[in-house]
């Protein structure tokens, strides 16, 4: 089951900070779904994944972003 991190109502960079705090708790290969409705999240979550060597899997629905822990 995919872990869900609910950051709705938070303004950037808070959802990215929450993602950076939560993802290391998950095992490598696990997926975290971030819920965020700040318009910057759609850009900043994939950018964070790129900077941190994690895998951005895409946005399955509006305001939802899936990240897989790769490292």
């Amino acid at each position, binding site marked *: 089951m995919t872990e869900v991190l609910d950051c709705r109502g938070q*303004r*950037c*960079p808070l959802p*990215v*900070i929450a993602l*950076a*705090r939560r993802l290391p708790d998950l095992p490598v290969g696990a997926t975290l779904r971030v819920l965020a409705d*700040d*318009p*910057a999240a*759609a*850009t*900043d979550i*994939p*950018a*964070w994944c790129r*900077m941190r060597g994690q895998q951005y899997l895409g946005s399955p629905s509006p305001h939802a972003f899936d990240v897989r822990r790769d490292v």
Partner: protein
Amino acid sequence: MGVSEAYFDTASAAPLHPAARQALAAALDDGWADPARLYSRARRARQLLDAARGATAEVLGVRPDELSFTSGGTAAAHTAVLGGLAGRERVGRGFVHSAIEHSAVLHAAERHAAAGGTVREVGVDRLGRVDLAAFADAVAEPGTALAALISASHEVGTVQPVEAAAEACAEHGVPLYVDAAQSVGRVPLPFGWSLLSASAHKWGGPPGVGLLVVRKGTRFVPPGPSEERTDRSTDLPAIVAAAASLRAAHAEAAALAERHRVLVDRIRATVAATVPDVEVVGDPDDRLPHLVTFSCLYVDGEALLHALDRRGFAVSSGSSCTSSTLTPSHVLVAMGVLSHGNVRVSLHRDSTEADVDRFLAELPGIVADLRAEAGVVDL
């Protein structure tokens, strides 16, 4: 400007060039009459306007009758897009533009779409350069009336392949509009375009003066009543000042660009080396000489801007929290680069090496303090 303030937001508004100040004072004395009247004083005003037009056209390398003055860069961009589209309505109603155009162009595109026109937006790569193949494909679509490509990104500085885009447009008989607001008076202009706009307060002229060039043979129908039909509604002293400062800026441009290029290279290298988790964006080489943009991970852009302001640095930001709409810069979004903690530094003719070095010395501590306050130091 206070002595301790380092003004780094020329891309929004350049401080008034001394040549503009001088010309403005003279024109306020000598150029207040209505240039459309027939007495000597009016003829004097008309001469000033004609001289300003001639000097400006010469710098741009166009004919004086191809140039008109508008009430600003935004008005010039709106007129270029809507007038260029209206002029080719019989061909079609398609408008092609890059994803990184100035908001003035995007707003004109929205207006066009709302009126039933078709708008095709072409993406950019990670460095902020338009996808030329996609641009050419979009232009080739039947019914394309006009294409727009900014000369260089006003947010990240990346120079756009305007001449190659113009060739693709020419193949299909589509006029190309170039928003050259960040290039005019700084760097040589590209060739091949049909319409061009610029804004005086980006090169050190007064605010409230825009340039619109429509090359001979370009189909163009001004939207709404023509602003300059009689040259009476224009701000003549401001136009005179704009022309004088453009000529001065143009004369200084090569030397200034060389100086700015060195300083911006230093900012790019030093910020990347001294601020952890920073993304310096835009093309490192093929870029505007005076402008650099970077984003600091986990830092709130508004907080960073205010912290810098308190230390005497005026910069702008493309972060969502600093915009009136609370959306991030569409340029950073199109590039897919980090949008929070964003800072744009743009230098002007009086920016000094000491200003830049003080900025580079203070920035790492400012970012570190903000990260410590937010508790994100080891993330």
